[in-house]
């Protein structure tokens, strides 16, 4: 652990230096056929100076990114009410808004309060009212929570905008060593914070189920090792340092166990580490490659990739009876599964006609649906509400992040201003 002080130092420096350049921006490339038209009027600001955040703009871009809504431009609005008494439905019917969101932002001491009202324009009735409070420094996350509430009211599915992402970005240094960064941002790419920077490869970032810690693989000592890092303190712990592979960490749903891949006993196999005692238990014993473990939401079984049948396919290992069954049969390459919270939808990398796409495997119907048309797609990560999949792909020679809805109907890209971006990991819901 000799490297810790210098790593921490570079982390601090990186946070100061790189906030702007690591930023991702969103480009929506395909929305739903009949998105809901919603007008989000600018929120009133009741405080001194400039408001800490344009709440309406954040809600607007969140709902637009879902592909299920088409927000109406501010310049098309005939009035800009901020209180229920000022709402005239004819102004909104005239511009074909189906719903209207208005709101007010106030600040007392350092506490911010966001109040909002949601109206059904056609039925001419208020359908929801609510408030978010918190420190002014969290104004953007509070705005995402407003978007979550609106999304849930209108779709029946909880929103996942007030969540975070982890991703890896690599900056090429011509004639020198590339450097890798592990970054955490809001779900829309805003507020990027560099958690770790090294000149050696970083990969496999993943969240603890309480979203308070992360784990990843770093080659910073010259060899791969799995690290666990607490987000609030930055405290790091090296969990493994075995000969051979130390990779693919995956937290169990109860947070007590880490699944991982080690090749210390010969070939890559899946192991479970009890995080309290650091005791290891070997799960697979096969001369083939067994890798990419991920947990089913009930914690009773693990999915993993194995080429024991000749080509990589997805298998399920049942922890209760030790049985293994193959899950994928369509296509010659299915790998790196991630499971939605419903335990039914599995997203994975799927090869078709020599190209790598993201596909969805329905564990009930056993059907595989290809979701993407981009190439060299990898590292799918599913939103905690199961609606969206973020993945890594290529645009020209550069790695970028892209998103697709689980029904394939909505697509967007999150290009970065510089570097290769890869391995997105969508956080679980954040506790308040």
């Amino acid at each position, binding site marked *: 652990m000799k490297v810790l002080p210098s790593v921490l130092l570079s982390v601090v420096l990186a946070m100061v230096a790189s906030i702007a350049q690591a930023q991702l921006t969103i480009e929506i490339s395909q929305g739903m056929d009949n998105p809901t038209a919603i007008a989000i009027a600018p929120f009133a600001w009741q405080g001194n100076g400039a408001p800490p955040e344009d709440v309406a703009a954040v809600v607007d871009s969140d709902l637009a990114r879902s592909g299920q809504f088409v927000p109406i431009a501010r310049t098309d609005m005939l009035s800009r009410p901020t209180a229920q008494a000022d709402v005239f439905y004819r102004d909104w019917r005239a511009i074909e808004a189906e719903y209207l969101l208005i709101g007010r932002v106030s600040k007392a001491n350092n506490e911010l309060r966001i109040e909002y009202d949601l109206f059904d324009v056609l039925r001419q009735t208020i359908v929801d009212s609510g408030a978010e409070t918190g420190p002014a420094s969290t104004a953007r996350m509070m705005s995402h929570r407003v978007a979550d509430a609106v999304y849930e009211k209108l779709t029946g599915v909880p929103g996942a905008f007030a969540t975070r992402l982890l991703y890896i970005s690599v900056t090429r240094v011509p004639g020198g060593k*590339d450097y890798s960064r592990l970054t955490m941002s809001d779900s829309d790419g805003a507020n990027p914070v560099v958690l770790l920077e090294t000149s050696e490869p970083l990969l496999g970032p993943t969240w603890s189920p309480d979203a308070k810690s992360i784990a990843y693989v770093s080659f910073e000592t010259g060899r791969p090792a799995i690290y666990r890092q607490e987000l609030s303190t930055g405290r790091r712990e090296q969990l493994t340092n075995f000969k051979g*592979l130390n990779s693919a960490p995956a937290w169990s749903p109860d947070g007590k166990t880490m699944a991982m891949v080690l*090749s210390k006993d010969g070939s890559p196999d899946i192991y479970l580490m009890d995080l309290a005692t650091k005791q290891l238990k070997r799960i697979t014993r096969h001369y083939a*490659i067994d*890798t990419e473990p991920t947990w089913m939401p009930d914690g009773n079984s693990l999915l993993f*990739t194995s080429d024991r049948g000749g080509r990589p396919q997805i298998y399920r290992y049942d922890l209760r009876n030790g049985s293994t069954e193959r899950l994928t049969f369509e296509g010659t390459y299915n790998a790196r599964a991630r499971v939605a919270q419903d335990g039914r939808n599995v997203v994975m*990398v799927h090869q078709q006609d020599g190209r*790598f796409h993201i596909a969805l495997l329905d564990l009930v119907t056993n059907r595989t649906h290809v979701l993407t048309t981009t190439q060299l797609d990898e590292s799918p990560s599913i939103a905690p509400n199961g609606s969206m999949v973020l993945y890594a792909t290529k645009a020209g020679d550069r790695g970028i992040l892209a998103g697709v809805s689980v029904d394939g109907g909505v697509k967007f890209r999150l290009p970065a201003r510089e570097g290769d971006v890869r391995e997105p990991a969508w956080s679980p819901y954040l506790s308040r």
Partner: protein
Amino acid sequence: MKHLPVAGKAITLLLTAVLLVACGTTQEEKDAAAAAAAAAAAAQAAQEAQESAAAANAIATVDQARLEEAAAALGNVFYFEYDSTNLTPEALAALDAHIAALQTSTEEVRLQGHTDERGTREYNLALGERRAISVRDYMVANGIESFRIETISYGEESPVAYGSGDGNWAQNRRVVLE
């Protein structure tokens, strides 16, 4: 004749002994002179043995350098076909030269396995390790002790050629011997 000064010194010692004998000295003195002469002869023999060993070493060093040059000429990067861990004929030829050089040394080596960007990162880490192990196994089968060989996989994380396409991919599917 670099050893002349040493031999000269031994001759001087012998002459001294002869002179001492010729001067009709005591038995004690004669014994001392004989001992000195024997010591001188032993010293000379040891010196000569050392010199011949050094000469042999010099020949071995020349041989080792020649072997290492031959290995270096064939390169320290061994390329692989897509999703394959089989050593190609070119890789085997280069590897044989490295093995020949390593058989007469105690040097330790590190084998770095790499893949192209196709497929998942974790699977590629495993594939890179398989490639490094396939090189290691061949070296061990040909007499290199396994404890002298370390393997590490970088998967697709450390490409030499950026960008997609067969040309770039072929350069990245490799094991590097260091």
